[in-house]
């Protein structure tokens, strides 16, 4: 290890090692508690349960590696997205950062901020995960990140309310079935669904999932290349039409455009609506945010697949996230080592056991305890193509446009054609 000092004179690493060497020689006795290397991990704000999980992993790693200190830092979701570019270009850049893959990661890689993990992952590391998970972090055959978990978007349902309206939640197979359920719920005086319209992205789940159902994951890839009219093509216009026809049925809580995601998830937890189109990760947050802290009781809670759309190319596809961590370019080798530890099979299984998220490591689904998590694992394994959220997969700028048009469509501000044209324009100018 000491040879590094001579191979890279003047680099940060050499200075760090030099400093460590000086510290070592001057205070042998005091050294026991002092860490030589600090690995800073930046993560989007999460539930307390998940924080505890990371604390435990870190404690175990530090026990095995006394000269490494791992520090987790958390930033709220929206702030994280806007601050990351600045952070990556500053001296304050973290060693490991949370990533959604997609075009956003491509921007960071092309600007040279991300460490290439291809070699590190080849000696057995990547075999822990299914190919689709590694693919989400692969750009031009190089791997730039490792997967933590997969998420799937679906309808969370409060069966106590749906039964009251005479809706059989398990029987919702097609988009028409869902529309009929909405009408029945309204007639019984129950708010059919909550949505956090103020934040944009929860509404994009409707447009994005409908577009995925209609075009299919491969159709979306083709649209990126400009085939079949690009994002102005038929499926994307039709997604807008379906969304607008759906909104005509008055499915959402009143004032839904002023509701944030957090509020919507609390409202669902408080039993104020029957459905919530949201990722599987909302299970614990929805409980934590509800007035009682208990949320919808488990026996009344269901997680169902997004319905099929007639004639859709993507009826066997799933829509959600493939989230993980990337390592910054000049991070220490210890950072890579810690990441490998964090995402190893045992820790992934532990996450499954705790029910924090649905880990991607092969076999970890065996540990999943809640029926919802098993449902997610089932949807993922049956899925033909796992389409990453459109507002992530298409990059920050186009993604924000997708969020905008979803809200505009829901309010009837623009036509489906205009919406599709705006996405295409944003894609051309990205």
């Amino acid at each position, binding site marked *: 290890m000491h040879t590094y000092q001579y191979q890279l004179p003047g680099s940060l690493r050499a200075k760090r090692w030099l400093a460590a060497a000086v510290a070592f020689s001057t205070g042998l006795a005091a050294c026991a508690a002092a860490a030589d290397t600090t690995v800073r991990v930046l993560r989007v704000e999460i539930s307390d349960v998940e924080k505890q999980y990371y604390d435990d992993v870190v404690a175990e790693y530090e026990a095995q590696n006394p000269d490494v200190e791992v520090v987790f830092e958390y930033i709220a979701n929206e702030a994280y*997205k*806007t601050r990351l570019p600045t952070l990556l270009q500053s001296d304050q850049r973290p060693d490991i950062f949370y990533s959604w893959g997609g075009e956003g990661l491509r*921007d960071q890689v*092309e600007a040279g901020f991300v460490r290439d993990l291809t070699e590190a992952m080849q000696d057995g590391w990547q075999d822990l995960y299914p190919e689709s998970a590694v693919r989400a972090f692969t750009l031009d055959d190089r791997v730039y990140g490792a997967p933590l978990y997969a998420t799937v978007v679906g309808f969370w349902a409060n069966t106590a309310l749906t039964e009251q309206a005479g809706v059989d939640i398990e029987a919702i197979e097609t988009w028409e079935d869902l529309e009929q359920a909405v009408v029945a719920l309204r007639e019984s005086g129950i708010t059919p669904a909550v949505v956090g319209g*103020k934040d944009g992205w929860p509404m994009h789940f409707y447009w994005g999932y409908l577009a995925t159902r209609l075009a299919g994951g491969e159709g979306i890839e083709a649209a990126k290349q400009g085939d079949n009219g690009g994002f102005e093509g038929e499926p994307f216009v039709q997604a807008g039409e379906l969304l607008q026809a759906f909104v005509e049925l008055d499915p959402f809580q*009143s004032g839904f*455009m*002023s509701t944030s995601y957090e509020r919507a998830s609390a409202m669902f937890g408080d039993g104020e609506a029957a459905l919530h189109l949201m990722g599987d990760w909302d299970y614990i947050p929805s409980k934590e945010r509800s007035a009682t802290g208990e949320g919808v009781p488990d026996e009344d809670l269901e997680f169902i697949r997004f319905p099929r759309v007639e004639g859709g190319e993507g009826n066997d596809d799933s829509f959600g996230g493939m989230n993980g961590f990337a390592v910054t370019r000049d991070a220490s080798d210890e950072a890579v080592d810690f990441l490998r530890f964090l995402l190893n099979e045992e820790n992934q299984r532990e996450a499954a056991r705790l029910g924090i998220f649905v880990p991607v490591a092969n076999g970890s689904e065996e540990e999943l305890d809640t029926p919802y998590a098993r449902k997610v694992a089932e949807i993922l394994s049956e899925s033909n193509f796992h389409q990453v959220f459109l507002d992530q997969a298409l990059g*920050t700028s186009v993604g924000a446009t997708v969020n905008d048009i979803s809200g505009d469509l829901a309010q009837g*501000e623009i036509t489906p054609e205009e919406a599709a044209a705006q996405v295409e324009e944003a894609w051309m100018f990205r």
Partner: protein
Amino acid sequence: MTTMTRPAVHKRSNADRLRQGLASGKFTAVLILLPPALILFSLFVILPLADAAYYSVFSWNGYGTPSNFVGTQNYTRLLDHSVFHTALWNTAKLILVSLIIQMPLALGLALLVYRKTPTNTLFRLVFFLPYILAEVAAGLIWSFVFDGDYGITAFMFQALGQESVYVLADRQWAFPAIMTVIVWKYFGFHMMIYIAALQSVPKDLIEAAKLEGAKPRQVALFVQIPLIKHAIVVSGFFAIIGSLQIFDIIIPMTNGGPSNSTHTIVTYLYTFGLSRLNIGFGSAAAVVLFVLAIGIALFYQRATAKEERA
């Protein structure tokens, strides 16, 4: 620089040296006092301006260095963008509301409370309180007030037996709501400027007017207001420049929504430039904002200077 000039001074005659000494005294003062200001000004004003102008001709996502030159494309896209038109119009509305509603309100209140009495001190404090509050906090507080489920608005509508109204989710009402908050937030500041000016109006002039039989309203209109014109000009300038900068109240209240209908130029710049990582595009918006601000400032200065001469 000083070491360069010294040998030259030594060669001169006595009289010359004296004159030069006086002159160089000023010169040294300039040499000592100017550079810090000049350095700070170039570093924090000129340089960023030049940078923004430079970035505005590139399509750049903020990573690395800009390389994709696009000429004036960012500007044409900006001028074609309907949300930018909304942002411009909203900013204009803010300027108008500040000048037509906020300033007269502040002036009227200042005339009521400018005399030094204990009750007046209390009122001044109360009126000034909103200004002390941080913008973000004010925005958050008002977003709760306007909340259609739990806010005071909801409570009022329910008390009247009406369906609740979601002010901030309504395209028609969201921006008027924001304007109300901005007037509420800043009138105290303008009021304080007027109070300071009113207190410096000579008492004998007011006494004289009263002896001539002028009613309080006439005293205000023909004595006090003309005498504090300079303060009104200054506060007008602050109102306009402040309106061009409005940002941190809108973000917590509506975040520019619903459907991008409540953007001002700055929230537009932030949303479409910074948070979407279109740094080149955002820079173009910044340049437009800068030109507008300079243009309005010059126009205002001309207009008010002319009035003073007349």
